[in-house]
């Protein structure tokens, strides 16, 4: 290998062989170092939650990644290229400018026996965000989310003053064997924490005065989305071994769905529904 080694001689074969070997070593080392360096950069820039979501999103089944404009029928099929962050999406901006969303009828607040008030916007991870009069935004679990988790055994809420990011973890809920992270619908600083009994979980203050909520579902989008979610729930329940198909009153999800399916892998069902595969 080295000129002072006994038996050393340079020939074309040595050049080719050692050249290829070192190229491979350099490529492999560069790849690793590059990945480490990028990881360090991500950590220092606080992109962990963003990456966690992107990684989760990547693992969702193709059907679960469909664009919101598929829900409204503008596309027959389209996979979201922005991990559900429509704020970055040019297509969404164009479409929303072309066809502003119709106001949903007031009666639609009650969808399949569940309450989805239209005074707020919905995140696809079953949370809602409601702008409050004081400029803050309250964040809570939507009705389906609440029914899925029933009365939580424990809730890990973020500390006051900490920041949450849209599609990042807002808080964690434990219920029976289920342990899921709940995605935050908005960016902001936590100014108050609530709980199940208070009707909301977080009250957040916009980070720079303005709360961008373009990526959240609203009005006429909610019903088709929920239809799809119930389909997904049915599928998830079947997949996770729900053997008793009765949902108390003829199909309306009961207030505590988990209790109705004692033998089901509830962690998996919740993972599916809260977009944490």
């Amino acid at each position: 290998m080295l000129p002072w080694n006994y038996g050393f001689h340079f020939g074309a074969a040595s050049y080719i062989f050692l050249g290829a070997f070192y190229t491979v070593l350099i490529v492999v080392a560069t790849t690793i170092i590059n990945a480490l360096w990028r990881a360090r950069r991500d950590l220092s820039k606080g992109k962990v939650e963003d990456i966690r979501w992107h990684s989760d999103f990547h693992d969702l089944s193709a059907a679960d990644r469909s664009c919101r404009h598929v829900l409204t029928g503008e596309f027959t099929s389209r996979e979201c290229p922005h991990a559900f962050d429509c704020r970055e999406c040019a297509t969404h901006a164009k479409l929303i400018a072309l066809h502003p969303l119709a106001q949903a009828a007031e009666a639609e607040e009650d969808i399949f026996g569940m309450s989805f008030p239209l005074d707020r916007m919905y995140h696809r991870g079953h949370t809602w965000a409601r702008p409050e009069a004081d400029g803050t935004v309250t964040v809570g679990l939507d009705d389906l989310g609440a029914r899925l988790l029933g009365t939580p055994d424990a809730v890990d809420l973020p500390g006051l003053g900490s920041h949450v990011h849209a599609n990042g973890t807002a808080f964690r809920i434990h219920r029976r064997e289920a342990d899921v992270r709940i995605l935050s619908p908005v960016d902001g600083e936590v100014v108050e924490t609530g709980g199940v009994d208070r009707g909301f979980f977080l009250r957040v203050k916009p980070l720079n005065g303005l709360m961008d909520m373009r990526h959240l579902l609203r009005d006429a989008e909610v019903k088709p989305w929920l239809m799809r979610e119930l389909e997904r729930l049915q599928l998830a329940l079947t997949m996770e071994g729900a053997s008793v198909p009765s949902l108390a009153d003829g199909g309306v999800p009961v207030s505590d769905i988990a209790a109705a399916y004692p033998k089901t892998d509830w962690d998996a069902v919740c993972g599916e529904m809260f977009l944490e595969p």
Partner: protein
Amino acid sequence: MANHMFQQIDKEFITRGVRRCSTPRFILWLVPWVALLLFGAYSAGLCLVKGLNQTNMDNRYAFGLWIFVDLTIIALGAGAFFTGFLLYILKFKELKAVINSAVVIGLVCYSGAMAALMVDVGQPLRAWFTFWYPNVHSMLTEVTFCISCYLTVLLIEYLPIVLKNRKLRDVPGFLVFEFELHKLIYVLAGVGTFLSFFHQGSLGGLYGVLRGRPFAFREGIFVWPSTFFLFIISAAAVGPSFLICTTWLVEKITGKRLAKDRVFDLLARISGILLSVYVLAKTIDTLIWINRTSPGLGFTASQYYDWKPFGTWILFAEIVLCGLVPALILLTPRLRARRAWLIPAAALACCGIALNRYVQTVQTLALPTLSFDKFLSYTPSWQEVGTFLGVLAYGVLVYSFSFRYFQIFPEERELKIEVRPQQEEEPVLAGRF
């Protein structure tokens, strides 16, 4: 109480939404393999401490069971590089379903072979000599360089699978590193493919260059004997077949469906096509060898097959029975769609490649070269067999742990629904829409 806590911890590491056996059952499954591994470690330890006199190899039968095993498992582990190549370079998206399994199998095969090689050499501590004083004309140098590089690549490719574990990815550093590494995985797949092509080939060249062993010697192109190319094709052909066999075996053991039929079908098709190319190339190579190469060295080819038990049947078994027959089955859509045909065909293809490696290593050494010499035979000692069994147990253990805690088959969750008997009751929530 402690037991319960242990089970709880165990459960937290299992991928969400997949069913795994209970902790005690898993431990029960591990026990025999751990015992075998310990026995293997003891055997290998004897060989390392007391020397290779613990084996039954001798001065005339200098390579034995281990070399045969190394060559075979590296060929079978070729699924790792070839699947990676098909998925990341040629974009066969369906193969995503088995790529993790292929990486684990590759890792097991390569690290197992490496471990066996370390026991096999007389002075393992001098292994670095090959890197320091490389003889670039030796096939073994090429093998050593490529296998150690590729093992590194496989370890790096295995890393995202491990870090993707549900519990481990809670650690921000792991999560972020896995994410960034996964984005660059195609680079590693490319490097892995390059390395694999060369070392599968140089493993073939290992015997093909042996001018002093006319049974193994082959003419070739440039510096590479024909076996160089035959080994590449055969390894690429049998890698997918071995994946079919292992996936099927894991399905049988766990009672789950792990990959869709179309994945099996695709693997079978790829295997079938490559296997038929291999059979054709091998046939041509054999004819050239019988009619030109071997007589050119003063050895008529028929004499090799006069030494019992290595009659011409071995040639027939290698090329027709374990080559052409599985290739035809794998190429016939109607046959490969049925497990009863697919699995035996894939297994037969694997056996064919094992037989080829056996012929290359064991038969080559058994045949005499000097006219007054006799046919040599050798039976592995229990230490050799023990070391081999240890490698086997190691493989099973790594695979078992990987299967339990990591997402080896991403389609497993989707397929869960299909094994359950269709329920008679009205589907959930049906009345509503």
